[in-house]
């Protein structure tokens, strides 16, 4: 009765073989192609779905001191509207009179609806195997509900304009012992670090390619990583202090990069090496 069975092991093995082939003296272009093949081979059965499922559960389940769910959380398109909401974030929220990105807004809702303290709501921004993050799961689910939506980050409000302008300056801010800024690696076309291609985030095409593919399940880490994680880890490599989670600089930089991606189809959660 059984016809064929493929095992995850076969996929893992294939991945290992791609890596090995890459190491034996091919030119750079074909190496990048092989890595792309590997990414495509992994698209089917993306473990990010496990985070999405957990996030949906967390969204709908009553929790916290107030024993309420997050289903009344307003992500910008009205209370409880999740579909397409991420493609229009960060944005200005009149109830708090400030611009918020998804993480900041989720933390806000966990305070107002769950009844957590702000410190509790932002206590664990990024997960690890032995310590999972509810934020990762919620972000995975909310972003998955924007899959296929067109990026349309608003800029009509003065505070949205301000966040974008500040984000742009933060992007070009050079500091630390290595004099790095975001622009050091992300302001030119067709460059790479080692073999990793670098998107030019100052241009629409590059920003679209990068922003619309986070969050991603990172195979090398076995974890779902959010766009906030990506920013956080870039600053670590920039030799900066740690970017505060849901901080104003984080929101501003996200606003700058998200708006540069306007017009593109949102594709995440994806899978990356």
């Amino acid at each position, binding site marked *: *009765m*059984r*016809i*064929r*069975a*493929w*095992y*995850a*092991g076969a*996929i*893992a*093995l294939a*991945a290992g073989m791609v890596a090995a082939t890459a190491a034996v003296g091919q030119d750079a272009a074909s190496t990048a192609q092989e890595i792309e093949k590997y990414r495509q081979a992994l698209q*089917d*059965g*993306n*473990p990010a*779905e*496990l985070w999405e*499922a*957990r996030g949906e559960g967390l969204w709908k389940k009553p929790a916290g001191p107030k024993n309420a769910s997050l289903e009344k959380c307003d992500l910008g398109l009205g209370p409880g509207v999740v579909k397409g909401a991420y493609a229009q974030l960060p944005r200005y929220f009149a109830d708090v009179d400030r611009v918020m990105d998804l993480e900041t807004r989720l933390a806000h809702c966990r305070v107002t609806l769950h009844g957590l303290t702000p410190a509790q709501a932002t206590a664990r921004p990024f997960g690890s*195997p032995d310590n999972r993050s509810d934020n990762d799961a919620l972000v995975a689910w909310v972003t998955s509900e924007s899959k296929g939506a067109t990026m349309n980050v608003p800029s009509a409000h003065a505070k949205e304009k301000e966040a974008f302008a500040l984000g742009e300056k933060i992007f070009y801010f050079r500091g630390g012992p290595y004099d790095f800024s975001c622009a050091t690696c992300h302001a030119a076309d067709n460059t790479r670090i080692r073999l990793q291609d670098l998107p030019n985030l100052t241009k629409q095409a590059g920003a679209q390619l990068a922003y619309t593919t986070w969050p991603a*399940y990172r*195979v090398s880490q*076995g974890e779902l990583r959010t766009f906030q994680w990506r920013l956080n880890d870039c600053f670590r490599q920039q030799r900066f202090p740690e970017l505060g989670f849901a901080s104003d600089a984080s929101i501003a930089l996200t606003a700058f990069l998200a708006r540069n991606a306007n017009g593109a189809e949102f594709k995440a959660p994806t899978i990356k090496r």
Partner: protein
Amino acid sequence: MADPMRIRAAVDAGGVTEVKVLMSHEMETGQRRDAAGALVPAWFIQNVTATHAGKTVLSAQWGPAIAKNPFLSFRFKGAQKGDKVQVTWVDNRGDKRTDEATIA
């Protein structure tokens, strides 16, 4: 308690049902060391079975070489749209998990 599996199953015009399963599991090899240098004990799914209408349609023995959060895809004949397919895994600690999906 392990997280639920994500199972999708669909039957095509030729009567072949394709099942895709994502499992949430660490799949620790037993070869890695932690920050203190101590071996991290092996912890992996050992047996996977899939059943349809009381019959086993897939039975597999796995080892530590399978990746974390495994993805399994397989096909079998004989099921109808609306039928259920169950998947069960058991790991080397004796932990087990069963989930089912309706064939689309």
